[in-house]
């Protein structure tokens, strides 16, 4: 028992140290592009965590989560741009709308009677419907997208001159999401979600209200994804239907989760740490010619990782740590 406690304490200290380190990094490395990459890593890590609640723990792979990302982005953007609504409020409203849409989809309309491949393609269809609707919705700018006006550098309206404050806000939200996910995973809901993933009929036979928990997971992930969408809009200051409703966003969420390992809590974070810098740096070094070589390279790297380590990188790290642990005993 003493050994276990020591390990737990050690772990917690490591965790706090890492958080402090992350807070300090951007202060020491003042490269603007690096800050941009950090911000994208943090945003996508959060998306990955939220997606993984459904994809990894519940086992329902969605390729349409961009729907909620876009709802969050457009809601807060339009409210701020057209009505002067404070973005913090806009974020909450966007998330609320996202959850409402999620409930409309899941209750009995979508019914969650879809499973596996049908669910994946169904959510894909949904994502595409959202994108097409947005492209043709002239009030929100249609295919041309919308610009968010720069008013002042201020925390209250989430606009800043430097990138740093963005990073800290987004990173704090990532930590919050991580805490929420950790709480869920170690709770009754967490166990139930995994049971549903393994065998829905058995779970039901053992008293699990599968419908209720499927919906919960769906709403929670939609909520968080929408918030990240709003953050994204405030950061980029320009959004269009392809950027926020496009299939790439949906697929990237899944990609990040699986690269890092969708059966671990921090898998998506690791996945984001691998995928996003790869994507951004390849783009900045090679992509300049506009011929898309960067995406070829990216595709090859992703393919290699998936082919040879399908359990994700987190699994690699876990086994490595386990081996080290055993060596030290």
């Amino acid at each position: 028992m003493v050994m276990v406690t020591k390990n737990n304490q050690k772990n917690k200290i490591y965790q706090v140290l890492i958080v402090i380190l992350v807070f300090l990094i951007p202060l020491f490395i003042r490269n603007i592009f690096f800050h941009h990459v950090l911000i994208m890593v943090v945003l996508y890590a959060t998306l990955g965590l939220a997606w993984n609640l459904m994809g990894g723990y519940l086992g329902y792979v969605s390729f349409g989560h961009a729907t909620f990302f876009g709802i969050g982005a457009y809601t807060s953007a339009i409210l701020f741009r057209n009505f002067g609504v404070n973005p913090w409020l806009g974020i909450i409203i966007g998330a609320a709308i996202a959850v409402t849409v999620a409930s409309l989809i899941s209750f009995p309309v979508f019914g969650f009677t879809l499973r596996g491949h049908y669910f994946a393609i169904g959510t894909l269809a949904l994502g595409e419907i959202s994108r097409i609707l947005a492209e043709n919705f002239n009030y929100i700018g249609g295919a041309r997208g919308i610009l968010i006006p720069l008013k002042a550098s201020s925390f209250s309206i989430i606009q800043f001159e430097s990138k740093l404050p963005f990073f800290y806000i987004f990173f704090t939200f990532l930590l919050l999401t991580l805490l929420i996910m950790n709480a869920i995973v170690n709770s009754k809901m967490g166990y139930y979600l995994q049971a549903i993933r393994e065998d829905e009929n058995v779970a039901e036979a053992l008293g699990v209200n599968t419908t209720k928990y499927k919906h919960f997971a769906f709403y929670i992930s939609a909520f968080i994804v929408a918030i990240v969408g709003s953050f994204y809009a405030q950061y980029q200051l320009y959004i269009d239907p392809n950027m926020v409703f496009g299939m790439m966003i949906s697929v990237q969420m899944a990609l990040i989760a699986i690269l890092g390992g969708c059966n671990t809590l921090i898998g998506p974070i690791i996945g984001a740490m691998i995928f996003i810098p790869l994507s951004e740096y390849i783009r900045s070094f090679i992509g300049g010619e506009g011929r898309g070589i960067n995406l070829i390279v990216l595709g090859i790297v992703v393919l290699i990782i998936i082919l040879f380590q399908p359990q994700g990188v987190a699994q690699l790290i876990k086994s490595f740590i386990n081996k080290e642990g055993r060596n030290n005993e």
Partner: protein
Amino acid sequence: MNNALLEVHNVTKRFGGLTANKDISFNISKGQITGLIGPNGAGKTTLFNLITGTAIEGYSRLPDEGHVIFKGNNITGLKPNSICKQGMVRTFQNSRCLDSMTALGNVMIGALVRTSLINDAKKKAVKYLETVGLKDKRNIISSNFTVADKKKLEIARALATEPELLLLDEPMSGLTPLELKEEVNLIKDINQKGITIFIIEHVMEALMPIADYIIVLDSGEKIASGTPKEVVKNPKVIKAYMGVDYAIIS
């Protein structure tokens, strides 16, 4: 018959042209071990599915006719999780474990029906694992278990839901003689603790000695019921099985 924990009234289920269950009625008395036997394809598992509200691939969960009463409440058509909460739980024929979870995790799922606290559920799970003799293997991923251990795990998991009525679907299949003995003793133990048991089984020499009451199905109909001794002598039953030697029963 006021001791009836479960009442099945005129239950009928058709799958297209096939009548899997036809006008089946019986009662399960509290505290007893009741067996459900019959040749393959008689409709036993269908009956279990209907009683517990288990989803049937491609068809509705509900019986076409008839109703089921548990502890005086009509549970016809309720979902399995509601029925489980009321105190009836079933195991599955092919030992469906939650593969990627440990034995402990599996049993905790059962325990979580009665408590929302993880630590509580863990303690209860360990207790039930001990009852079936799997306590030492509790941290092993269940997909690695042998057939016999998986069956024990299923039972531990079902017990963790603290049922009054336990439905076992062919718990003896695929076991060696030694494992069979263990399994039979386990079932007797569980029954002695006050849990009513309803078993589908083919392994007669294991079932007959412990059952208080037997119901026999053939081609979807109930053809006989009574004590094991009565049923064994019933000509309809003998005919249905066509030559199975029942002389083994003492």
